[in-house]
């Protein structure tokens, strides 16, 4: 356990607390960015450079910008302090217990490392690229179809067409 790990943990935990304790949603969102960057630090410590970069670009970058935009566009008023209802309390404690049980199972569980490359290579960008274009080339190409489906679908749903059909004229 090195000094960086302790430092990152302190940042991650305090910013996570900030996410749920801050009154202003924008402040919560900013705390979440700090939290995500700290988690990216964990990945870098574990030699997973690519994952660390993706974590910052995708989560701390793209997704958080989206969250902040939504907060600004919806012009959300400061949430009134509401007392949590009994139902919410029961549901959240059930999920909390489930989470703790699950984590206790994972803690100390033996994970197989047989399929993992040597520690000096794993997670580096070069190694990832090599695996992606050999062993996982099919999945890599298939994800292109997935992205295409998402783009075409989004375009179809967002396209504002007049109520009248374009060319078919079959609707009476």
């Amino acid at each position, binding site marked *: 356990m090195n000094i960086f790990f302790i430092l990152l943990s302190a940042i991650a935990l305090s910013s996570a607390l900030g996410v749920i304790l801050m009154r202003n949603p924008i402040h919560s969102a900013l705390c979440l960015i700090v939290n995500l960057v700290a988690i990216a630090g964990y990945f870098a410590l574990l030699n997973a450079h690519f994952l660390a970069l993706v974590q910052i670009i995708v989560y701390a970058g793209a997704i958080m910008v989206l969250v902040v935009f939504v907060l600004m566009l919806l012009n959300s008023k400061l949430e009134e302090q509401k007392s949590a209802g009994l139902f919410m309390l029961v549901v959240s404690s059930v999920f909390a217990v489930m989470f703790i049980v*699950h984590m206790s*199972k*994972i803690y100390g*569980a*033996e*994970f*197989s*490392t*047989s*399929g*993992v490359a040597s520690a000096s290579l794993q997670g580096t960008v070069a190694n990832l690229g090599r695996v992606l*274009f*050999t*062993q*996982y*080339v*099919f*999945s890599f190409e*298939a*994800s292109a*179809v*997935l992205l*295409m*489906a*998402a783009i*075409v*679908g*989004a*375009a*179809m*749903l967002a*396209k504002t*067409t007049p*109520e009248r*059909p*374009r*060319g*078919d004229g*079959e*609707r*009476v």
Partner: protein
Amino acid sequence: MEIISLADLYSISPLLFLTLGAFGILIVDVFSKESWLRASYTSIFILAALSFAFQLADVAAPGKTAFWDAIYVDSFSIYFQVLILVGALLTVMLSHGRIAQEGVRSLGEFYALFLMSTIGAIIFVSAAEMVTLFLGLEIMSMALYCMCGSAVHSKDSAESALKYFFLGSFSSAFMLFGIALMYGVSGTLSLAESAAVLSSSNSGLVPIAVGFVLIGFVFKIGAVPLHFWAPDVYQGAPTTVTAYMACVVKAAAVGAALRVLWTSFGSDTLFGIWASAVWIIAALTMVVGNLVALRQRSLKRMLAYSSIAHAGYIMVAFLAPHQGGGSAVLFYIAVYTAMTLGAFGVVLAVASPHSSEPDADDIHRFQRLGYRNPVLAGCMTLFLLSLAGLPPGLAGLLGKFYVFNAAVQANYVGLAIIGVLCSAVSCYYYLRVIVAMYFIPKEESDSDSLAPLAPVSLPFAGVIGICAVAVVTLGLFPSILHDGAQFVIENF
């Protein structure tokens, strides 16, 4: 070593044709506004994929894989590829002219998504490792979410798309988590290789992983604890999409579930873990699906609950891996596809083209159909009787016989009894439609107030005819398909 060999490419040739079609139709859409052109363009690419899928049977071998063990090229995956492609082809025939009436504006995008969803379904059933499996599931679902909402001006369609999207993403997340745990325990993504490690591992994570993966499959199959989405989604989506979901997507989910449960979780210790869960799920699915179907007036909703009930019958056979359960599943899913697609074809032909009307597919629209259009009513009777499993000579009865026979041989007599009883209950709601079609006196019916039936178009007649012939042929000569199914399972 070469990264992609020609043999690899050949083994995914159906997928290549479908991808080409999906991207090509977006270009065709720019230049032509003709509806029939887009439908026939789609059909041609599905036909090409289908013929290559048949060709693949020559190179298939048990356990053979392509693309660095990413996908299987065995008779099991080819059986399901053919089934999916035939289902997709029939659905395209049903879609022609009809989806525009149901409010779908962007036909080019619709058919592109349709082909991509079929690509996902094929990847889903042929996947040999878990990343590919999950990608197939997501491609199929992502395209399907958008297809559900493709009638952009209809509130029902939007509701159906949103419900399906949220619940589907939720269940996918569960499945992904299960896959991550499986990888964590076994250290391999391959379905076949993980089996040995998982069965010898005594980690407490294995049951959790099995449970999470099972949740993902149960949702896609539409079995009971996770069936709530099905009726609303089926009713709100354009009817063609509903038919596609009830047949092709369900077939793909059944195939993939069978593969994962019997390959990765196939050892005796793991079978013990999921068998009791599947027992309860199958029993609940049969009971709830059939009981709730009794009260439906909308034919689309009725067929939705009926498809839930049939998912229950199919899951019964999951429990008999060594007693003929496999060939029973393969036979049943093919017969189910024919019966349900045919029934949806008739519903489409009879229901009001304006799906926004609240009673567009209500049962009263079927009143005295036997006198208004005897051929259509005859075919519908055939499909409904076969779905109910009533007379000998129709395929539905034989499908149920194989399933329950396998269950009895595997010592699940209780489950088989529940299944037979539920099947008897189901006769009520299937026969109710037949009664409405034939046995309502002219004075009591309001069929005169209904708009006269539009003439049944040629593609519609084709679909209904093909399905009716399939139901009767497989009922009289089941060995045509059942022998093939047994061959597939022997080479599993």
